[in-house]
């Protein structure tokens, strides 16, 4: 199993380690609920080094990425990033990822841990003999730490002379934190303000230690999952997969298919015209039981859909869930039942996201 550059730090902190996409990762240090709360109220740090970091450079880089990504890289400013989807010819989602435009011909792609190999292979399949492109997978030489929470910017500022406030959302910059060279981006997966920091393996443990010293609470992947669910951010393998398209997952706004070279242009243009047949919705249940991935959704004793993710929200103090239902049953307040281990629990469709931070 792969270990991140912070593995020893997790063991020292007595973390519970689990296998996640082939990586040994901390699911929790103390408690999932207390860790999620720390991110909503102060600031937390997550080791997200299991996610891929793929550098793509060369004259053909933008031309090849424009065939693959759901966004047009020509429309991204240098130093900026965009969330997007990597779809196959049928419109199925191979992965969702963030693409950073470091320079005109330099990009950084952040795929999910379990999809990094598939994304690399997909990119390779577009390379021809005439392509001028260099692909450099720096995942195992670097770490990535997510620093998230309302106090994130204030506490990180104490470690650098760079003006963090000037690093706007979805912007990346090279700075030093306590003398350590890092690339820092104003992105995250928790619904809070914060940063994702890439550093070299040799500096990983010193940086992690420093972040704890300034008051950041170590948080495991368990709290990361509930935080992203509260913010209704999709997880590949749950809300999105090869058998879902971006429109049914409410991700149509991240698709710009008006490029002739785009591989999924035809299929996605068609779906955007006709509209999706089903829709990802938020669900509120009447009980304390938690709907979980795979549970059936019923209306009038008929199985009409399924739960993609469910969990216990420490922010709202109740279970929350998302799932797919046919478009004709997708209106807010629609009543339905969820089959939780043979018990049909009453629920209704509610607005998502479940949690939205107050903008300062």
């Amino acid at each position: 199993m792969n270990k991140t550059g912070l593995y020893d730090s997790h063991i020292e902190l007595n973390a519970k380690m689990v296998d996640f996409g082939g990586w040994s990762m901390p699911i929790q240090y103390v408690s999932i609920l207390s860790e999620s709360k720390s991110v909503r109220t102060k600031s937390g740090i997550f080791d997200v080094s299991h996610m891929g970091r793929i550098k793509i450079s060369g004259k053909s880089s933008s031309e090849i990425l424009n065939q693959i990504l759901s966004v047009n890289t020509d429309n991204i400013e240098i130093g900026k990033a965009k969330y997007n989807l990597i779809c196959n010819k049928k419109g199925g989602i191979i992965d969702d990822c963030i693409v950073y435009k470091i320079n005109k011909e330099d990009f950084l792609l952040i795929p999910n841990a379990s999809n990094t190999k598939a994304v690399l292979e997909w990119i390779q399949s577009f390379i021809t003999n005439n392509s001028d492109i260099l692909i450099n997978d720096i995942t195992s030489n670097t770490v990535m730490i997510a620093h998230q929470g309302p106090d994130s910017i204030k506490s990180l500022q104490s470690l650098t002379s760079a003006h963090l406030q000037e690093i706007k959302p979805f912007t990346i910059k090279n700075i030093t934190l306590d003398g350590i060279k890092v690339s820092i981006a104003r992105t995250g997966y928790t619904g809070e303000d914060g940063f994702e920091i890439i550093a070299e393996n040799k500096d990983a443990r010193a940086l992690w230690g420093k972040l704890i010293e300034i008051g950041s609470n170590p948080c495991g992947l368990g709290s990361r999952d509930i935080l992203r669910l509260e913010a209704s951010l999709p997880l590949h393998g749950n809300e999105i997969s090869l058998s879902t398209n971006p429109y049914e997952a409410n991700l149509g706004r991240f698709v710009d298919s008006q490029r002739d070279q785009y591989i999924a242009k035809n299929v996605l243009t068609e779906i955007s015209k006709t509209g999706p047949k089903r829709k990802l919705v938020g669900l509120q249940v009447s009980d304390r039981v938690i709907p979980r991935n795979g549970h059936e959704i019923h209306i009038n004793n008929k199985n009409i859909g399924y739960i993609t993710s469910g969990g216990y929200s420490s922010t709202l103090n109740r279970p929350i869930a998302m799932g797919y239902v046919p478009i004709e049953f997708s209106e807010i307040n629609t009543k339905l039942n969820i089959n939780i281990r043979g018990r049909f629990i009453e629920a209704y469709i509610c607005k998502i996201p479940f949690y939205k931070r107050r903008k300062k």
Partner: protein
Amino acid sequence: MNPKDLKYSKDHEWIKIDGDNSAVIGITSFATDNLGDVVFIELPDPGTNIKQFEKIGEIESVKAVSDIFTPISGEIVQQNTKLINNPELINNSPFKDGWMFKVKNINTTELENLMGVDEYDLLIKE
């Protein structure tokens, strides 16, 4: 750290004899540590007759759902309603305030099917 005056099952329940043919039942700190934050506990109503080692309820943590088994036969006389309303009690105080239910009409010979503290300590060390 597992109390000496309790008996233990391999499913990580503890039982404490509480007066004549009555007992209090809970789960061990080893179990709660593995479950993580508990958010929901479902137990049979008072009056229900239960049989040793059968599944009688469910305990749900943020991570997953697990079955609750009873370490002894008898009739449920009381649920810990404080626990039902504050499931985190079981994480904070598994051997005391986080007890789950009380049973009466137990057959004390069934205690022979359970472990003493030394044997249970060994089990969880493995």
